[in-house]
């Protein structure tokens, strides 16, 4: 499997997710600078990482969504290449129209960094194949704008097509308002595109993929990608 991570000015989880990928893949990940549109042709996975692309100064992800490299990512994604977009990456791909919905300011109006629990809602994608529906994962979040919003018709379509990948939940897997760290509609933490080849999520699976850091619930995502795309 060949993976690449896009690096925008202001990305800051690019190294982190490359480290997590390398642990599972066993070989280095390519880093692609935002001005390079010359993406290697044999890529299996492209990651749009977390951070503060362009300082998040206009609107989170808005400027990165219009960068040259994102046009190319979009073209490849339409041909079926897998795209994993985490945190700021999720904001970028929604701005770029790869996934529906938007990420608004957190309900509490503050940046929140902590472990949350996620209920797995789908296991039919290259990202989630090693989880079972109903599994409860502990994965950290770190964002100020992760409040997922889409109109009712879109939400219905997402639900009908089984494209909600993860929801914020209690330790026991219950979907409650208290377990929702940012006010996302229907506790949505991650969504897939129609072809299930693009996953956007606010939580950081790479941050708990190492026993030394206190948890490994995120690792199965990288292992699933390796197994599916190898």
């Amino acid at each position: 499997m060949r993976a690449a991570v896009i690096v925008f000015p202001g990305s800051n989880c690019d190294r982190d997710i490359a480290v997590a990928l390398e642990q599972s893949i066993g070989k280095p990940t390519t880093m692609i600078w935002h001005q390079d549109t010359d993406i290697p042709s044999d890529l299996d996975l492209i990651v749009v990482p977390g951070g503060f692309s362009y300082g998040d100064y206009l609107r989170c992800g808005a400027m990165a969504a219009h960068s040259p490299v994102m046009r190319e990512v979009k073209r490849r994604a339409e041909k079926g290449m897998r795209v994993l977009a985490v945190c700021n990456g999720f904001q970028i791909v929604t701005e770029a129209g790869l996934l529906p919905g938007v990420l608004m300011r957190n309900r509490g109006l503050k940046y929140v960094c902590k472990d949350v629990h996620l209920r797995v809602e789908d296991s039919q994608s290259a990202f989630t194949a090693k989880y079972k529906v109903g599994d409860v994962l502990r994965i950290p979040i770190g964002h100020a704008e992760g409040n997922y919003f889409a109109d009712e018709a879109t939400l219905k379509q997402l639900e009908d097509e089984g494209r909600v990948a993860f929801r914020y939940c209690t330790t026991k897997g219950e979907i409650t308002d208290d377990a929702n760290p940012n006010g996302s509609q229907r506790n949505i933490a991650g969504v897939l595109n129609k072809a299930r080849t693009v996953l956007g999520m606010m939580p950081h699976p790479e941050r708990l993929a190492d026993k030394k850091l206190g948890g490994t619930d995120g690792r199965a995502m990288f292992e699933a990608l390796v197994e599916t795309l190898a």
Partner: protein
Amino acid sequence: MNHAPAKRITPEDIKTHGLSDDEYKKVLEVLGGREPNMVELGIFSVMWSEHCSYKSSKKWLKTLPTKASWVICGPGENAGVIDIGEGLAAIFKMESHNHPSFIEPYQGAATGVGGILRDVFTMGARPIANMNALRFGDPKHPKTKHLVAGVVSGIGGYGNCVGVPTVGGEVNFHPSYNGNILVNAMTVGLAQKDKIFYSAAAGAGNPVVYVGSKTGRDGIHGATMASTEFDANSEDKRPTVQVGDPFTEKLLIEACMELMATDAIQSIQDMGAAGLTSSSFEMASKGGMGVELNMNAVPQREEGMTPYEMMLSESQERMLIILKPGKEELARKIFEKWELDFAVIGHLTDTGRMVLKFHGETVCDLPIDPLAQASPEYDRPWLASTKQPVVAAKDVKNVPWRDALKTLMGCPDVASRRWVWEQYDHMVMMDTVQRPGGDAAVVRIHGSNRALAISTDCTPRYVKANPFEGGKQAVAETWRNITAVGARPLAITDNLNFGNPQKPEIMGQIVEAIQGIGDACVALDYPVISGNVSLYNETDGKPILPTPAIGGVGLLDNLDQMTTLAFKAEGEAILLLGQKDDAGWLGQSLYLREVCFEEKGAPPPVDLAHERKVGDYVRGLIHSGKITACHDLSDGGLMVALTEMALAGNLGCRLENIAAPLHAALFGEDQGRYIVTVKAADAVATLEATKAAGVPAKQIGAVGGSAIFLGGESVELEALRKLHEGWFPAYMATAT
């Protein structure tokens, strides 16, 4: 040059530039009798400000121990450097941003973080952790909530964006900070030992390069503001507070790291307080060089800026670099890639003078060495502090332990800081092994099984009551916290926050606290490698509690030998180590303040030999693998420490064998103590071995249940958790 100043300097000019009459006389001497022009006066003003010159504290700072075989670079550079083995160096420093944070909390705190980050990466280190030590006024003071909210979100706003984890720190409240909050930010970075960059300029003709953001009119006279007391009109100083741009800082870090990987840099320094003036002046001064700058080449954000404004601006995210000859294009390409300004603004000379040109005219011509040499240094008069009487336990009200414990766990100085650190990204870079809330933050050295342990501490009420013991205690507490996770403490940075040094009693606090810090550093083999002094923390003549904040760094050679404070398993034995016979020191304790509403007495003394012996022994025990949890004892004493361990592990404990009187044994703040847990089967052997090593030890109970049990009474953990977790969010949620 036309030396005749365009405008005569008036006594008013001298005063607004913060220079005394005597200091102005020295200015005239340095210039051989001629009057300075306004640009030159501005340069004297900032270079001789307390903030840049340390004129009141220098005499005493020189007495601090700064050497050890592992110290690569002590105080005097942008940050201190220690050898941590395997070809690596840790570079760190703590610095205050107190005055600006009070005036404009978000930007003040944010730019404090930005400044300390630059101090560290300018030396070639990639920043791997941020810490902060914050002091606010009385929670009931009408401004406190606004200041807490602004400072915390400013620290988060900056640190989160640059992608350096904020892994810990401290927050205290006390009415003495009502008019002067303290925002002390610390950064720790990692560098290759043989790739460290210094600031001494060398090589006449070498280009002087400006990189980063453009220069604007913000922050002019920030250093001078930070060198005076506040009064009712201090809010008018808001325009002197700088505005931070963490996105540019992130780009600047990456661009500098990229340039540092080449062989292009001769020397480099960030533009911090006093901006272009102090960076160019200090670099030339350290290298015994002269410098000539073309002010028209300085990238400017606004039109019509004068040399005076450019030299005194404190616009953020700027660096000054002396390049090796012929490296301009290589460097320019890197900074252009990162979309940062890059300009050759001058060159080094061998004249020993600082010459500034503007539209071809010389607008400043100052002798660098004489100006630096003549920098004022005061031996200010000081008064020895008055010794406070020791408070006897029998004279302190013995409140039922359950009530006292509940009060303490929910009081502002003990309550959980979760509300604060959840606003900081403490996990980015994926090496945070111990998150905020433990004794010390533990940050893995990337790609290895080693880690740095970091802690910041100071107990200002102790320092006020006895500056010497309080200075010792601040150092000892960081040492103890680092020890409690299993790390070897290596060195400290000190951030000395005091009131007006022109008052002999304040100067006495400074002198004695420094003596205490020095004694502790010597006894613990724990030198000072960097630091910062913030004086004049007074408003309308009322000083802050003396607050010498200490940031300590230690090394864990093997992460598998680390321990945490959480209780691990039912039935494990709880041992108290280091408790001397004279148990129960209640003077200056939180019990006395929060439960009995009295702030009085002598603080607990720190027996440094005892501290060292107990700590070294505990660290050995941790490394032996026998210890399942470890926690040092500090604010609130034994009972608060046990409760913190219980809450972290979600396991209660049954206590026994507690000395009388109970309030002194449970809440006394005697120093040099730790609680450890071991498997029940190991308890007797561990106790015997510990006593045989000359370290006092006794078993005081066992882990178990869902409450704290003592003498037939108990308090449920859930009730304690609610109090402990509840205070901060409830306080911040209520309307001012």
